[in-house]
């Protein structure tokens, strides 16, 4: 058997793939967080709950309405995105004049409510969700066995990240968004409806989180706590990458997923803490984050 530093290459590749999949979730989630933070100056603590909701809505669509995975991939982000729009209009927009910390606290409260409601309704044992027919099974690549669904998740997450990047860097709407992030008052003076832009951004960020949730649904058991478990890691990812650049957060997300996977192979005891350790080291060496600008 081929080995790499005493580890069978099959096992190594398997863990790397798992790491890449986790990294895909980190990337999509930190992308949404960075978008929302850029325009609203709010850290969206409910991001994890919105991720969890995405997975649950997909599961509910299948269980109660027989709507399949492909449609759920569209509908669930739409539902959660609209829910986000509602939250922004009803609650968040009251807080923009206050200290940024209040936004964090409000969304933390919302996360508790959502998590609690789903726990009340479905318990914490978790629901299972089968991958769609087309993506079941896998292919043998010679050096490893690739389950099709896992490959699909990595590819589609990467595509979404690139599409969001292109949308923000290359389109007119993206240009407005960037301008409003730099100087909202000036953009507003030019006649752009900035509050609408803000509402849309929050909704879009929530929808992205839900999209990541649907992608994750067939991989893990769908459970009310899945959101809070991942969001704290994503916070560390965001601190490591810095929220200054879109591609930076995508790169950091995937990279840290891989590092986590490698740690599982070589030193499994540290796999749950390695990202936090990296965060501490980055804080010591480059406090603004790898891709961040100093204030």
């Amino acid at each position, binding site marked *: 058997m081929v080995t790499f530093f005493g580890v069978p290459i099959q096992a190594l590749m398997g863990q790397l793939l798992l790491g890449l999949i986790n990294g895909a979730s980190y990337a999509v989630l930190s992308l949404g967080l960075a978008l929302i933070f850029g325009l609203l100056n709010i850290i969206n603590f409910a991001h994890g709950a919105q991720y969890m909701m995405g997975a649950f809505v997909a599961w509910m669509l299948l269980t109660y309405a027989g709507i399949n995975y492909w449609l759920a991939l569209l509908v669930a982000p739409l539902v959660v995105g609209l829910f986000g729009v509602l939250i922004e209009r009803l609650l968040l927009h009251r807080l923009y004049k206050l200290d940024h910390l209040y936004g964090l606290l409000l969304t*933390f409260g919302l996360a508790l409510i959502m*998590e609690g409601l789903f726990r009340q309704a479905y318990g914490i044992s978790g629901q299972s969700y089968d991958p769609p027919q087309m993506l079941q099974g896998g292919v043998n690549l010679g050096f490893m066995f690739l389950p099709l669904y896992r490959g699909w998740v990595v590819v589609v997450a990467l595509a979404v990240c690139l599409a969001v990047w292109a949308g923000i860097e290359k389109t007119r709407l993206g240009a407005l968004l960037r301008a409003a992030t730099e100087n909202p008052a000036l953009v507003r003076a030019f006649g752009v409806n900035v509050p609408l832009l803000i509402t849309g951004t929050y909704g879009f960020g929530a929808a992205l989180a839900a999209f990541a949730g649907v992608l994750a649904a067939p991989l893990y058991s769908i459970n009310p706590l899945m959101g809070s478990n991942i969001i704290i890691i994503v916070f560390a990812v965001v601190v490591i990458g810095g929220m200054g650049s879109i591609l930076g957060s995508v790169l950091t997300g995937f990279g840290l997923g891989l590092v986590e996977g490698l740690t599982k192979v070589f030193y499994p005891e540290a796999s*749950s803490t390695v990202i936090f350790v990296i965060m501490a080291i980055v804080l*010591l060496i480059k406090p603004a984050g790898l891709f961040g600008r100093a204030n």
Partner: protein
Amino acid sequence: MMWIAAIAALALAAPYAVYPIFLMKALCFGLFAVAFNLLLGYTGLLSFGHAAFFGFAAYVTGHAMKEWGVTPELGILAGVAVAAAMGLVFGLLAIRRLGIYFAMVTLALAQMVYFYCLQAPFTHGEDGIQAIPRGKLFGVLPLDDMYVLYYVVLAIFAIGVWIVWRAVHSPFGQVLHAIRENEPRAVSLGYKTERFKLAAFVLSASLAGLAGATKTLVFQLASLTDVNWHTSGEVVLMTLLGGMGTVLGPVAGAFVITTIENYLADIGAWVTIIQGIIFVLVVTLFRRGIIGEALAFVERRRRQ
């Protein structure tokens, strides 16, 4: 001064009217919230990871008393010392980032402590450290007597709150206040604000550790719940609800939240839901908290 005497009298008489364990739990969380508020209310730093100090000190005290058989005062001292050392490390890392990042860094570091506690053998994982003997304080005061224990907890609480009160009403506290209002200005006046923030962080972490260590004595248990991020969120909620502009506001918040938990503990996830609703209500409607709003009300009446 009148009302301080009234509160003291009430606190001394309370265990004869209300279940002492409940009172002690509220006092421990009250001290925890007062310690936390030294950062949020008086320095303007939102730490989302204070459960790490509270919970880890609980583990250290529990381990020292059960496995090494030390007396309660040494057990508590060990817990506080470890919490202080952790506060120093966390503080050094966290104050490198400002505002919202500060909250995320503390949360992430606390989660690291949680995962460590989940795996480390001495915490006994999901079981926690159970049946910790209370022993005799200074070798004389038998803490297994509920009333003795209550007055000891009350004394620890009073000392902790007094320390925070002294710190806030000292020149040191004035500098913290200046940092909260306008840090660049404080820097331009020649203060090394990082050192002041670090000192406040270490003090806050130590007192949070004191609260956690005391909680171990009361419940004879140290468990993963104490280091979980939910506990970090709870102490934020207590402080907000009670009023972060005052020294005693967080205590009021702690009593309210502990009472809610006491009555709703049996009906599943409702505690979480109600906590979330209180968060949303306080942040959108009354940001000064219970005590803050009450003081503002009295002030308005006085002016009329």
